[in-house]
């Protein structure tokens, strides 16, 4: 039988594990019936405790990853303003559990956008600009072993994020924008924007439709990370991560 879940209590457990920097086992392993809806209930609780919000992020946006974990849709999380890194400032590994880096294309939303039928074109029309980004994932679950409901509860492994200067998306085919992930001066992965749900704007459109189901939407000024474009790489002290996106520029992040 499915047990009712106590979102506040589970959120508190995740928050404590993070504060202690101690990974835990997946919640789904101990809670029968812990499903996506339950995961989002825990995430909502975390969001209510997170302070000012910067925007949203997507996860599991690549078809290959969806097939691998047996789902047909991405998942979403929120971006806490407090987790933003600034250009030139190092990533403090002591604050994290098991950080991984991945390259993304970020959207800065210029106009409120909500509704159950929003398309990529609507997203692009509401976009103020786009930017190259590095997302630092940091799962609370040991070795990133989790079911989808777990990762949703854990705010889709959100750790930190670094966003470059915003440029106009007009005239850029984000589907084909080349992105190169570098680690310590070597190429660690390459991709094009299509790796995020076929087009980064399609990933953002999915986010808006998903938010609409909860009566929410995007607001002007929101930041959206549209999904990892390559496999995420482990980072350790001394590593330098670079991400370069054609026309969008480059970011360099030192790990301390």
């Amino acid at each position, binding site marked *: 039988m499915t047990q009712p879940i106590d979102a506040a209590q589970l959120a508190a457990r995740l928050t404590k594990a993070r504060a202690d920097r101690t990974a835990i086992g997946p919640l789904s392993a101990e809670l029968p019936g812990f499903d996506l809806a339950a995961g989002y209930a825990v995430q909502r609780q975390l969001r209510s405790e997170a302070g000012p919000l910067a925007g949203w992020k997507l996860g599991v946006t690549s*078809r290959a990853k969806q097939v691998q974990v047996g789902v047909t849709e991405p998942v979403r999380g929120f971006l806490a303003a407090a987790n933003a890194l600034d250009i030139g400032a190092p990533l403090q590994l002591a604050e994290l559990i098991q950080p991984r880096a991945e390259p993304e294309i970020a959207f800065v939303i210029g106009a409120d956008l909500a509704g159950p039928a929003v398309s990529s074109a609507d997203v692009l029309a509401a976009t103020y600009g786009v930017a190259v980004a590095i997302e630092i994932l940091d799962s609370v679950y040991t070795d990133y072993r989790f079911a989808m409901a777990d990762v949703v509860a854990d705010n889709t492994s959100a750790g930190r994020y670094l966003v470059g200067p915003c440029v106009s998306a007009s005239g850029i085919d984000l589907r*084909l924008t080349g*992105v190169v992930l570098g680690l310590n001066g*070597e*190429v660690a992965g*390459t*991709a*094009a924007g*299509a790796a995020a749900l076929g087009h980064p704007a399609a990933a953002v459109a999915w986010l808006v439709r998903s938010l609409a189901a909860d009566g929410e939407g995007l607001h002007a000024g929101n930041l959206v990370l549209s999904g990892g474009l390559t496999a995420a790489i482990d980072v350790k002290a001394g590593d330098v991560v670079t991400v*370069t996106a054609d026309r969008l520029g480059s970011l360099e992040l030192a790990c301390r």
Partner: protein
Amino acid sequence: MPLTDVSGKATALYQARRSRQPIEPFTDADPDLGMADGYAIAQHLTSLLIADGDEVIGYKVGLTSKPMQQLIGVDQPDHGPVLKSTMYADGDAVSLASFIQPKIEAEIAFVLGTGLRGPGVTVIQARQAISGMTAAMEIVDSRIADWRIKLADTVADLASNGAVAVSSRLLPLDGLDPRLIGMALTRNGELVDTGAGAAALGDPVAVVAWLANTLGDMGGSLEPGHLIMTGALHAAVPMRSGDVFRAEFDRLGPVTVRVVD
């Protein structure tokens, strides 16, 4: 200690190409066979194909990504000729019957405006020698059964070359950075993989310099008009009859291959 038997091995590969019957890897019987042996066999094999009327119109460079190099256990790429008989245009039908166990890869191709002779060719010289860049797909194939290749096997087998398809849209490099050219590969309209130029040895232009220098060490050179396939931007994809592969590159546009029986 078995003799390398360059001409015998070249003939075995030649016959495998003609009959489309794969052979066992040379390195099974001759585990000491190395890269130099591989290139000696490749040179002999190429001369057999030229004697049949084929022509070397450029080169392909393989093993340009770290994962592929680790798989084969090397720390550098390899190269083989692009043969005139294996050139396809954008949109052409490619018959599986022409191959043994083909896979497809999207790549950036360069055409040289001036020749390059190593050693000592720099990336700047390589860039200056390139007259244009085009969207391309390479069909790799192996005459070695089940792709059970070690380095000497694939080098001898002309770097597992199969065929190439190139777009006619040749763009000058002016102001473009081939490292950052993004590519999305679809099969029958579904995204298969993506990549960017930097997947090829960090920089497709560096592939040209490496090729010129490596050929130079063997007494060869790159000539004006040569087509250079700079290496896959993603993991190779097996081909099935009915597949339509489309690799679309930022700025360069698409190149399409239709796979038939």
